[in-house]
């Protein structure tokens, strides 16, 4: 449908429809009437200057923040008030701008934690009867090994993540999100603070996740080159408002966007 970067994929019915979201923290307006949709299978980038409200948007999507106004429609249904841990159970996984890993655990255990929502034997049943649960564990471990292979982090499987360099931590965090086999993957600046080589690897992983698993991805990213390469469509935010929405080519040439990035008063 669009010709940029990876985008031979057809954009289908929206997986998520974000309608008129407003979010305030006391006097600070983090989001003001933001509406956009996320189509099934696309890579949707959110860009904008610092403090634009990008991370806040992600936090609204995964339930950490509750907006004062607006609606979120997910898989064709309006989402009522819902607790963050239940949002994970609806197939939404994420990474954080300031890496939030379980520092004391190995990379492997971190990624295994990503599968909490997929544990079938149920919390209470597990407590009372661990035979089947242990069998299930083997299955989970196999899936996790596949993810470890995919992300090329075999060498650091057993390393406590607190000891890993930043770039690898970001990769493990992606692995943990992937382990949940999410429908919607939210990535908050997955390439920030990486060198070029690390960035290229990360880009490849993100593209592969979209192509091979069909996962829908929302990506916050500052590096315009990366955005142009990866995104099917781009939302641009500034001061809590949405100022542009379109395919990368349009966005590049949009005067409002250029102004926002050049800091022109408006």
């Amino acid at each position, binding site marked *: 449908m669009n010709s940029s970067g990876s985008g031979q994929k057809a954009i289908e019915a929206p997986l998520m429809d974000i309608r008129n979201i407003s979010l305030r923290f006391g006097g600070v307006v983090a989001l003001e009437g933001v509406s956009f949709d996320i189509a099934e299978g696309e890579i949707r980038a959110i860009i904008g200057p610092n403090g634009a409200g990008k991370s806040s948007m992600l936090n609204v999507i995964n339930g950490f923040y509750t907006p004062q106004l607006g609606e979120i429609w997910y898989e064709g249904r309006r989402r009522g008030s819902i*607790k963050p841990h239940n949002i994970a159970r609806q197939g939404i996984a994420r990474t954080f701008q300031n890496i939030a890993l379980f520092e004391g655990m190995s990379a492997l255990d971190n990624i295994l934690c990503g599968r909490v929502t997929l544990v079938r034997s149920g919390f209470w049943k*597990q407590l009372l009867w661990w035979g089947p*649960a242990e069998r299930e564990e083997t299955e989970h471990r196999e899936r996790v090994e596949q993810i470890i292979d995919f992300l090329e982090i075999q060498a650091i499987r057993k390393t406590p993540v607190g000891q890993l360099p930043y770039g690898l931590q970001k990769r493990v965090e992606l692995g943990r999100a992937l382990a949940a086999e999410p429908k919607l993957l939210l990535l908050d600046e997955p390439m920030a603070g990486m060198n070029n080589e690390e960035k290229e690897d990360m880009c490849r992983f993100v593209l592969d996740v979209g192509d091979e698993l069909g996962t829908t991805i929302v990506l916050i990213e500052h590096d315009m080159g990366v955005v142009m390469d990866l995104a099917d469509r781009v939302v641009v935010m500034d001061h809590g408002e949405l100022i542009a929405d379109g395919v990368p080519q349009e966005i590049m040439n949009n005067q409002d966007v250029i102004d926002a990035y050049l800091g022109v008063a408006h």
Partner: protein
Amino acid sequence: MQQLLYLTEVSLNGLTTGVLYALVALGYVLIFKSSGVFNYAQGVMVLFAALTLVGLQRGQVPFAHLWTAVFGTHTYLFGWNLPAVVAIVMTLGVMVLLAILVERLVLKHLINQHPIVLFMATIGLAYFLEGFGDLMWGSDVKRLDIGLPVGISETIESFTAATFGYGVFVDRLDLFAGLVAAALVFALTVWLKHSQLGRTLRAVADDHQAALSVGISLRLVWVLVWSTAGFVALVAGVMWGAKSGVQFSLSLIALKALPVLMLGGFTSIRGAIVGGLIIGVGEKLFDFLMGPIIGGATESWFAYVLALVFLMFRPQGLYGEKIIERV
């Protein structure tokens, strides 16, 4: 030979005190593992559980003094005695209720806060619970009798007397406490070994936000863990109470769990047990051998000094997870 047997008797004595220390320490470890917080209130929970058990069993009217002061009821007893089993089950119910209240009223509001804030909250909880227990059940020393075996084990005495010519005194209650503790530790270890559960607890201890994002309900985990800690507190309270009566000094004895944890490591169940036993036996033996030379009463400080010396060589304790600091 006699000397040796006497030494054995002292050690055995210490071993059983150690078991009780270990039981209390176990409660601390459980909560530490799942929230990274030292639950200062664990000792008071032991006391509170024991008070509640005795109160329920004897048919004490809760808050009797309060009712009397306000309404002039002067009713202190319902006039019934509950069977021990019923009282125990009801006490367990109270401990679960306590866990739910702690989660609702305290922990829920402290998500994403620094562990020190949670620690302060548990100090508050300890003082509240101590006062609450006092108000609810009264501060008199109570006898706890739920039909546990008591007295000196005659079998062991006559056996050792016949074999070695010296009858070793072992308290039957102590033996029983040892068995219960062993069973409890076994059950808890198997339970926590359960890989998914173990990971979930560590995840919650490590990072609240990340735990939520992967779909862990912090609240469910907390209620579960505090209930379990309440259960362990009840077991410890029953054993201590049966041995020395239920009284407010119980919460002070419980602080002996601190050196036990330093020795064993804050995150290890095995550590709590081994630490408890080492300190129990250590303080009795030390007092027996050195007490007369130094001038007695070494039991009050020995555990702390031992823990301190130990800390210098192994800060993470015997079995604790190694603390790795990135520099």
